[in-house]
């Protein structure tokens, strides 16, 4: 598989961002800010950070991505559609009656590995899959994308305690650390910071990065060694909620709001200006 250039990765991210805005506008569903903060994390995974190939999606030993912050499903759906897991036209039907693309993902959607939506489930599912790979002798990687809000959940920390004990080195947790949860600052509601130190203390190899540097995130995902027996890795991805649209960035009103016609036009206009800027 040829490595994507940084430009191609950014193009995928820009396309996902446009799709996400349009889906949120059309369906008037919540969690737009959360969807925009993890665009580069998803783009990095589908742009070669993991081996997520629609032609291999039935292969038992494929890499697996668990999208634990299921409320940001539009980002996942856009990536799956743009990478050929299902027709792009499905995005038009997102959250419409009878559509498989409901507001939270489930395994009936091609490419979705686990149903998520209730927070704090993904890391346990992921470590189960990494354990299964070890039992079955598969050489693959399992990545779990979590929100910082999910680090409120006790079950996340149950999984965080167990994975290093089994030395599940092929497991990668990526935390979309946008510093907000539904109703407030994530570092004020719970004592989340220092987040990387917490994971380190639990036995993880913790690294921090700019979660909007899609190439850097992709490279970190690629560095996870399939089948490795060693400490699992957590990538604390510093992100901005509502990233990419000036009037949505770091404004938690967009956790529940969705854009009206004028706001959508303004947002798409900003994105098109951005995408034509020289890199």
């Amino acid at each position: 598989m040829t490595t994507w250039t940084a430009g191609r990765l950014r193009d995928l991210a820009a396309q996902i961002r446009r799709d996400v805005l349009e889906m949120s506008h059309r369906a008037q569903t919540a969690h737009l800010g959360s969807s925009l903060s993890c665009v580069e994390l998803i783009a990095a995974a589908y742009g070669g950070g993991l081996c997520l190939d629609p032609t291999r999606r039935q292969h038992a030993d494929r890499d697996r991505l668990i999208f634990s912050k299921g409320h940001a499903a539009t980002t996942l759906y856009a990536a799956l559609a743009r990478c050929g897991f299902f027709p792009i036209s499905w995005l038009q039907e997102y959250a419409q009656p009878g559509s498989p693309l409901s507001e939270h993902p489930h395994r009936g959607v091609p490419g979705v590995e686990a149903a998520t939506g209730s927070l704090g489930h993904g890391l346990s599912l992921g470590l189960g899959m990494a354990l299964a790979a070890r039992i079955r002798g598969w050489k693959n990687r399992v990545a779990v994308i979590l929100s910082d809000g999910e680090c409120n959940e006790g079950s996340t920390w149950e999984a965080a305690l167990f994975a290093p004990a089994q030395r599940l080195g092929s497991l990668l947790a990526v935390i979309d650390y946008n510093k907000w949860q539904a109703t407030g600052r994530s570092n004020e509601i719970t004592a989340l910071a220092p987040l990387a130190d917490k994971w380190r203390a639990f036995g993880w190899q913790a690294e921090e990065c700019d979660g909007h540097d899609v190439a850097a995130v992709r490279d970190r995902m690629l560095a996870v060694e399939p089948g490795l027996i060693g400490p699992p890795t957590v990538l604390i991805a510093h992100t901005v909620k509502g990233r990419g649209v000036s009037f949505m960035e770091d404004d938690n009103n967009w956790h529940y709001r969705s854009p009206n016609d004028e706001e959508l036009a303004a947002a798409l206009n900003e994105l098109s200006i951005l995408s034509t800027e020289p890199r």
Partner: protein
Amino acid sequence: MRNAFADEITSLAETDERIVLLSGDIGNRLFNTFRDRWPQRFYNIGVAEANLIGAAAGLAVCGLHPVTYTIAAFAVYRCFEQIRVDLAAQHLPVVVVGTGAGLAYSANGPTHHSCEDLAILRTLPGLTLLSPCDAVELRLALRYALTVSGPVYLRIGKKGEPIVHDSQPPRDITRPIQLRSGERILVLATGVMVAAALEAADQLRADGRAIEVVSLPVIKPFPSDWLHQRAGGFETVVTVEEHGVIGGLGGAVAELVSEWSAPRPRVLRLGTSDLYVHEAGEQAHLRQHYHLDVASIVERLQTAWLEAENTP
């Protein structure tokens, strides 16, 4: 029953390499044979029930057949959402074993009792509920559970339960098993209460009152057709379980019978009442407290018999 479980799962793992056993930090030495034989297929997840169920779901997605094992009260209530979202809603083949169900952990108090598990789990679509009465039914139930394509809750006792099926072991664990034939009263019992119900019925039989006794090792999917065909000929159906009278076997039977056209049998539910018990004592003592000891059951059956006789 737990020794029979350990023995049977070890024997089944010999031929079914998909079996992975996950314990919630209980069963000290119970699974040593299993663990020594298949170290890659036994994991003590720790005192972390949400992770126990979530990890099992991840294993099941990858084609393995996990069996989780911990005390019933911890296997169900704390991680109900994991059972609901990860197992039931995704219809994954995971066997959740709840050991020491009902009042088995008697002196440990209500934290360790489990008289609400069937009630809450019965609400989950696609979850199979099995409640074997002795080691014989347990072995069959476990074998059956591993053939089910979706999640199964296997509700078992602890240790030293009397063997009910000493002469003629049942063949099909998914169907009710008739233990005594009789008239007027049909006793439907499940789990560890089958032995007590049988003993009570036999005392009445000695007085010339032949009561029918059936063991129900499967609570869901409930054999409703069988109940409709069989119970119609009785004046009274008595359910007996070491579980609350709300929502368990008795609840299931009452729900079904209430939808039948008259004439229909009266349903009497024997189980734990809608109160926690905060006193020390062995299982026998707690059964007395909840009127689930053999003498209390005899009394309830005698009264029911007389009332049935006097009903025009």
